């Protein structure tokens, strides 16, 4: 594992690479270009960087219209402002119209830990994954952010990518197998399956190391794509390990845990535990402490797993 990297900077660099390959890619800013990692793109392709100011409802419609002319807009802004706020625009103008637009919600989850609940985004996955045909991705490390950016540039159709802002540890090798819609088994195991996603994949990763030290065989899975969900991998894990624990920086309602439970309830019911934020507006304070408040630190995750296994 190497040094941690800034997710927004990583995304911005990947978007420039994607933009070099495909001249149809454009970046759309809502008065947050630099904070969204778009400065390198703006410098490299000034005419393909479009500023709209603080109008996140209108921006989604503009992106939809631009896509009808063959452009591939990447709309990047603070997560709740491009998901919860313009939800109907996302649903109708992107989803229903099947437009080739990529929305990137940055500083998602509890990232804006001190700024409070207006700026935190704990429901974005829940609401966006209700929209038919939208790919929902939550990359788990900087390597994955790059892979997802390129994959979304190549994928034809609407998509949502969620990224945080605190530096993320590198968990994946550059050559690991990435495919949209396919989970990644990071470690084989038989006692329990621990599933992580996005910013707290690393917490699940470190928790699995702690559990292994205690002699518990953990299957660690990275579900980077929340929609479409990797059915086969999850059903196999339920069948082979019999117990599943999900870890996410998101509400328990409708997120990774909810999506996995919806699937397994139909396909192969098994006991589950879900770690995330329960039905409340999250508190404010230092980011790592806030994660601790909701049981998302590795020792806490390991504790929840042990208690679950009895």
């Amino acid at each position, binding site marked *: 594992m190497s040094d941690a990297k800034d997710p927004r900077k990583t995304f911005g660099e990947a978007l420039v690479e994607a933009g070099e390959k495909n001249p149809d890619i454009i970046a759309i800013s809502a008065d947050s270009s630099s904070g969204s990692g778009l400065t390198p793109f703006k410098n490299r392709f000034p005419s393909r960087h479009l500023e*709209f100011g603080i109008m996140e409802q209108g921006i*989604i*419609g*503009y992106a939809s219209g*631009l896509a*009808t*002319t063959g452009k591939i807009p990447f709309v990047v802004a603070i997560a709740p402002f491009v998901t919860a706020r313009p939800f109907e*625009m996302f649903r109708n*103008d992107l989803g229903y119209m099947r437009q080739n637009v990529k929305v990137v919600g940055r500083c998602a989850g509890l990232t804006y830990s001190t700024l409070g609940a207006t700026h935190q985004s704990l429901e974005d996955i829940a609401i966006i994954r209700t929209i038919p045909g939208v790919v929902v991705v939550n990359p788990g490390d900087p390597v994955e952010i790059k892979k997802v950016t390129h994959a979304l540039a190549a994928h034809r159709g609407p998509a949502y990518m969620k990224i945080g802002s605190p530096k993320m540890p590198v968990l994946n090798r550059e050559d690991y197998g990435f495919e949209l819609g396919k989970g990644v088994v990071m470690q084989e195991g038989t006692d329990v399956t621990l599933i992580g996603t996005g910013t707290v994949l690393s917490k699940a990763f470190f928790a699995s190391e702690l559990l292994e030290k205690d002699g518990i065989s953990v299957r660690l899975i990275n579900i980077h794509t929340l929609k479409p969900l990797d059915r086969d991998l999850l059903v196999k894990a339920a069948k082979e390990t019999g117990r599943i624990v999900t870890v996410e920086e998101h509400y328990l309602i409708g997120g990774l845990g909810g999506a996995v439970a919806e699937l397994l309830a139909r396909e192969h019911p098994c006991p589950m535990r879900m770690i995330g934020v329960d039905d409340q507006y999250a508190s404010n304070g230092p980011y790592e402490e806030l994660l601790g408040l909701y049981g998302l630190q590795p020792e806490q995750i390991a504790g929840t797993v042990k208690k679950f296994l009895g």
Partner: protein
Amino acid sequence: MHSLSEHEELELKRIAFKIRKNVVRMIRAGESGHVGGALSIAEILSALYFKIMRVDPRNPSWRERDRFVLSAGHKCLALYAVLAEKGFFDEKLLDTYGALGSKLPGHPDMYKLPGIETNTGALGHGLSISGGMALGLKLDGLDAKVYVVMGDGELAEGSNWEAAAAASHHKLDNLLVFVDRNTLQISGRTVEVMSYEPLLKRWESFGWSAREINGHDLKQIVEGASGIPFEKDKPSVIIANTVKSKGLSFAEDRVDYHYWKATTEELQIAEKDLAEIERGLKQ
């Protein structure tokens, strides 16, 4: 700028009549529908599709085509009628309105019929999408234009004003909006439900070039729509004063006919009204 000959004007009147006739036909088939706004834009659609816009029914996705966006998607019966008249699809499809899985939903679906550019219905979406189209066309160096019909009640949606500001900021002078000012919405007179006057000044203050016309006068519509941009680098808007449910004697300018659940008796009156319009056109 185009001006209409007498012959051309009569032809466009005939098409507007055909739109009205087919709107009533669909409502008869489906037993109900948004009639008022569909009838108030019949002349605007007649002029756009048969005099102003460059579209090709045999090649609906032609890259250089002009675009039409019906932001007030509930007026779609008029759009279905004009697209059928233009040859985008067989007129017989109109009789499926209201049937299970019909290609003619109560708000338009671009994947169900050729010639539909957007899925609209929720109000306050169309102008942003149209702005994106206009911007994309400009980025590609195409001189195609984007024509939009909005309702006046729809203007209360705040998202429109985000879209309007961005259109002037990005100098989208290839964009023309018709506001169908039929002055009625579900709850009553639009300015009483939520006032929007002074409407021209409101648009102008957002950086648009605005004009006002009689939205049933084909000469005025064609002169306005063919003269864009009204000012260089500015998007254009035409406030079209219209009569809701225009052409149906029992429904004209009446709030009750925003959505019409047609009775047999009303349909009979509608037939008489349409016959009278047709007689007028033949004289």
